[in-house]
């Protein structure tokens, strides 16, 4: 009887739309849920794997059971374990005629298999069959699977059927067929290149869902080849216009916005089409202007569209009016309390600054707030912005900040990035040698293992060759300051290997050059390095070579050399080293010590590292030796080329010399090549930098950095490179004053930098008067970031009036300063969560019926509020805080709150049922997992 009851309960559960699985499975999920540690979870899963392995071997498993096993396999795989032993059963299940089972089978294979798995070939046949099915749900399931499982080789097997389905009567099928074709295009563009016109056709589909899906492949196609889609500009604009005018069905509305996801997609496409195209851009002005006016900036989705508009405007050739609208939107973002919006604002600023460099000045304090925010994400975005707006006037502040941040983080990925940015900026804009060396020291000290080795070589070259001016005095000062700083740093424990190499090299070359430090002092330091890092052979090698140089300079200058005892023992140790390189260096050093001054001077002349060594490629100095050998009867040498000419028996060697390697890969089957087998668009796709696309635009910082890196490795510190980066027409006006390369000699160079300083002055003075509580520290930072460098304020004031009278129009008048006094009023008033205010903005409320009368009490509305408070962009932060804390309080799992929780759902009966179900499941609500029971949405 008792047993029957359990069965009845389980069956009843199934009919309730509850969990519908067997006790075993529910127990599994439950025990995983209660597992206290990852190890315990793993143990449970492993025993489950054993059970399933055994069960799957049983003969004649009923299909219902099999379906559950497969879902259990999915669960195992989801938890990160290998369920490959059961893959074949999932594949088999896709063959089943029952759609329910088929769907489970397809779900499992799409989750288990990737497109290169061996089992795919067994599914292709089923997919083909299912694509022909009368039941559109079967077709949909098959199309879903196609998007995940079909690879380049199997595309032809399903392509004709997928193309047929583009005209299927069900819009769901058409949509999925479009997505499948899109997937094929991504996998192998050539396989569907003849079908591209279909995408254009589907753009006019009656169903907005199909039209929206078509935008995905069109976006990709336009990214690859803008010019052949220019004719669609007006179509896209008119679609966007219709969408904003609410011509689409209501069901596409999202938070009162008409089809926002389609709008965003369209804006992305328009950004591509309008890039660098004046006439295309002009068509878009109207609709973009409308969007700025209409967009509801109180919802998240409205802001998402606004942000996309800003991006679009930064890509196309904008009108001044649009730029202004974009700047307004950005300032709204920056003034918001929401970190998300601040982030978007900083990002937008970084985009617009390329077009109108003045825009950042209005927001200087907001930017500094973001820079000092505890949120790492925001901070990093702000550093990205600063990186974009670096010029020689503010490089010191920015790079100092960057290095400080770099030192403070542990994330190696980002550390590498910011370190290379520091190096790049320092190389490009360094105001003085001392500063440059300081920055490089910092970067090497803290991220030496992460930076490119070329940076180290660059630094050594710089120290050796100086800054390019023929000023030996300045060069030796630079060297001395480098040596001094290195001697200081050396005592620190655990320096990166690369940095030690630089230090050793510099000390070896220039340690004793000025006579300030004695040879024994420097050599002692070098021995210490070799001793402390005895496991690093490269460092040791550098140290020994440096010692050799020190002693060589000593001998050459005729002084008596006392080899330190620790140095002597180092040499002795290395003479027996397992590393042949170290051994060789040690022997060389030993030999050198025995030589006289004249010989040593010709071996290691002083400061000769930059002198070109002429390599005699012809080895002419051996001519005499060869002559002798030939005279005594040796065969003369015949070069490879001559040999191959002599042996011209097969046509193999008759080919051009550099074509020979390709022979290994030749196959006869490809005898008649199609000249156009590599489509032109594929080749343009491969061009990394000049492509005027969305993506290349986004990666610009990377590409420019790589360029400058390459160049700088060839030349040296590029102080004259300032103009190149910032020499774009829009920049010239504001940076022209400061773009003259600073003199290398003066350590504390000051820059006139009139243009920038002047426009930042006005807003700053207005902060001083209006907001006395603003940290003076911040103001100073703002001035140094956005204004000039170290010249006094009054100086700048007087000069600003004289030089740039027109600037006044660009900088905001004092009254519109960017400090938010009050956040804009919010639609959702979270301070007073009344039922009506929630209903007004909550589409779900309408669907779920009116709130239960119980929900009038504070706690329940709060739970509803959590969701929407997060969603709403400009809530006051304190109210969110309290909502969250209340939420976590109520989730502590004591009986009282538990009861109140049952009333939280929109339908108390349903919630009670759920609760009962939970109790039936035997999950104890007061266990360590109380949140298990909390509603996600309220």
């Amino acid at each position: 009887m008792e047993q029957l009851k359990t069965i009845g309960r389980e069956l009843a559960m199934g009919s309730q739309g509850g969990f519908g699985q067997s006790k075993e499975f529910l127990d599994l999920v439950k025990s995983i849920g209660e597992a206290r540690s990852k190890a315990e979870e793993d143990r449970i899963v492993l025993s489950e794997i054993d059970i399933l392995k055994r069960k799957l071997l049983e003969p004649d498993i009923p299909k219902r059971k099999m379906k559950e096993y497969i879902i259990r396999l999915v669960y195992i795989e989801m938890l990160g374990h290998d369920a490959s032993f059961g893959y074949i059963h999932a594949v088999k299940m896709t063959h089943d005629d029952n759609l329910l089972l088929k769907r489970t089978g397809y779900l499992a294979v799409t989750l288990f298999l990737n497109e290169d798995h061996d089992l795919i070939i067994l599914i292709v046949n089923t997919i083909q069959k299912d694509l022909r099915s009368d039941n559109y749900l079967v077709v949909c399931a098959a199309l879903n699977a196609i998007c995940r499982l079909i690879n380049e080789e199997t595309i032809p097997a399903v392509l004709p059927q997928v193309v047929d389905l583009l005209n299927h009567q069900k819009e769901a099928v058409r949509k999925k067929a479009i997505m499948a074709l899109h997937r094929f295009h991504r996998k192998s563009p050539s396989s569907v290149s003849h079908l591209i016109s279909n995408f254009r056709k589907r753009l006019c589909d009656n169903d907005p869902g199909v039209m929206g899906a078509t935008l995905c492949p069109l976006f990709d196609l336009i990214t690859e080849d803008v010019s052949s889609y220019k004719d669609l500009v007006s179509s896209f604009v008119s679609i966007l216009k219709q969408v904003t005018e609410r011509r689409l069905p209501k069901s596409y509305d999202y938070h009162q916005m008409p089809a926002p996801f389609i709008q965003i997609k369209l804006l992305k496409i328009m950004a591509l089409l309008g890039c660098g195209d004046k006439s295309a851009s002009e068509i878009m002005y109207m609709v973009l202007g409308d969007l700025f006016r209409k967009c509801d900036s109180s919802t998240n989705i409205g802001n998402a569209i606004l942000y996309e508009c800003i991006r679009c405007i930064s890509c196309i050739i904008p009108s001044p009016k649009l730029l202004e609208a974009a700047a307004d939107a950005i300032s709204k973002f920056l003034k918001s309390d929401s970190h998300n919006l601040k982030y978007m604002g900083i990002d937008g600023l970084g985009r617009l600054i390329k077009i109108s460099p003045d825009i950042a000045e209005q927001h200087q304090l907001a930017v500094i707030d973001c820079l000092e925010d505890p949120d790492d994400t925001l901070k990093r975005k702000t550093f990205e912005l600063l990186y974009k707006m670096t010029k020689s006037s503010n490089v010191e502040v920015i790079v100092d900040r960057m290095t400080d941040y770099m030192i403070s983080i542990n994330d190696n990925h980002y550390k590498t990035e910011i370190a290379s940015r520091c190096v790049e900026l320092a190389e490009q804009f360094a105001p003085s040698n001392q500063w440059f060396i300081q920055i490089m020291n910092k970067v090497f000290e803290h991220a030496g293992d992460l930076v490119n080795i070329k940076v180290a070589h660059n630094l050594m070259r710089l120290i050796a060759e100086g800054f390019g001016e023929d000023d030996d005095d300045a060069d030796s000062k630079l060297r001395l300051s480098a040596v001094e700083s290195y001697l200081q740093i050396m005592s620190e424990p655990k320096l990166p290997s690369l940095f030690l190499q630089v230090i050793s090299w510099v000390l070896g070359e220039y340690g004793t050059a000025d006579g300030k430090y004695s040879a024994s002092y420097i050599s002692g330091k070098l021995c210490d390095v070799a001793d402390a890092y005895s496991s690093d052979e490269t460092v040791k090698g550098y140290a020994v070579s440096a010692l050799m140089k020190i002693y060589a300079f000593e001998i050459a200058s005729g002084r008596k050399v006392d080899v330190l005892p620790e140095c002597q023992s180092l040499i002795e140790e290395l003479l027996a080293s397992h590393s042949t390189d170290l051994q060789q260096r040690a022997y060389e050093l030993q030999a050198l010590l025995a030589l006289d001054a004249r010989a040593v001077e010709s071996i290691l002349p002083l400061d000769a590292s930059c002198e070109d060594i002429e390599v005699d490629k012809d080895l002419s100095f051996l001519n005499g030796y060869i002559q002798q050998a030939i005279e005594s009867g040796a065969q003369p040498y015949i070069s490879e080329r001559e040999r191959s000419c002599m042996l011209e028996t097969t046509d193999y060697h008759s080919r051009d010399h550099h074509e020979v390697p390709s022979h290994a890969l030749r196959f006869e089957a490809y005898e008649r090549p199609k000249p156009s087998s590599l489509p032109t668009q594929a080749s343009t796709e491969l061009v990394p930098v000049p492509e005027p696309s969305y993506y290349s635009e986004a990666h610009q910082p990377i590409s420019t950095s790589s360029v400058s890196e390459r160049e700088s490795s060839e030349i040296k510190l590029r102080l004259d490179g300032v103009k190149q980066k910032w020499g774009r027409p829009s920049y010239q006006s504001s940076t022209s004053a400061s773009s003259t390369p600073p003199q290398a000699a003066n350590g504390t160079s000051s820059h006139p930098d009139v243009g920038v300083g002047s426009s930042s002055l006005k807003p700053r003075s207005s902060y001083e008067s209006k907001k006395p509580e603003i940290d003076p520290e911040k103001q100073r930072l703002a001035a140094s970031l956005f204004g000039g460098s170290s010249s006094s304020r009054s100086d700048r004031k007087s000069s600003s009036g004289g030089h740039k009278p027109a600037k006044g129009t660009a900088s905001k008048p004092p009254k519109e300063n960017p400090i938010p006094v009050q956040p804009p009023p919010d639609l959702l008033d979270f301070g007073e969560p009344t039922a009506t205010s929630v209903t007004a903005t909550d589409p779900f409320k309408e669907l779920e019926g009116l709130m239960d009368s119980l929900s009038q009490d504070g706690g329940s509305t709060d739970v509803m509020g959590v969701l929407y408070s997060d969603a709403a962009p400009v809530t006051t932060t304190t109210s969110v805080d309290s909502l969250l804390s209340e939420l976590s309080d109520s989730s502590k799992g004591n009986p009282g709150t538990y009861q109140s929780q049952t009333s939280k759902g929109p339908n108390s009966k349903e919630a009670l049922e759920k609760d009962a179900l939970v109790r039936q499941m035997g999950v104890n609500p007061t266990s360590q997992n109380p949140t298990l029971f909390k509603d996600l949405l309220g």
Partner: protein
Amino acid sequence: MYFQIHFVLLVSRQGKVRLTKWYSPYTQKERSKIHFVLLVSRQGKVRLTKWYSPYTQKERSKVIRELSGVILNRGPKLCNFIEWRGYKVVYKRYASLYFCMCIDEADNELEVLEIIHHYVEILDRYFGSVCELDLIFNFHKAYYILDELLIAGELQESSKKTVARIISAQDQLVEAAKEEASSISNIIAQATK
């Protein structure tokens, strides 16, 4: 992020590609818009994973471990985005569940945040005030719904109604099976009274 060599390409004279190796980030263009979807509970337990870009099982575990470590420890008022290994992860917390989606660095984060919300709203509509428990025991249904929303990492349908319609069409078959079950359960209930 310096790339001296952007890619290595071996092509035969007939134009057949023999080998490709990509170093520059623009290779990401060939991948999906959304790289993966991840649902993690506040205790760090995985509730749902869906991978649109290729990751091995080992990489997956690593990704989950790393991301849940970062995301679970973030404060409530901070950004809903994190920069992670050159990608961006957009996450949002609903009660005790974190919904995460990984996108390219250049994508619109707010839009993805709304896609997450869109998904949650659809789940809510389907389950009737969804809770974590629904997703724990009915994760396969959550997968079905996700498959109707996102395909190959792209948003395929932005209408809640359309998604609901096709899911319910699929479920009608399930309902048919369940009706049988409930009639049996009634019989049993009668018998055990």
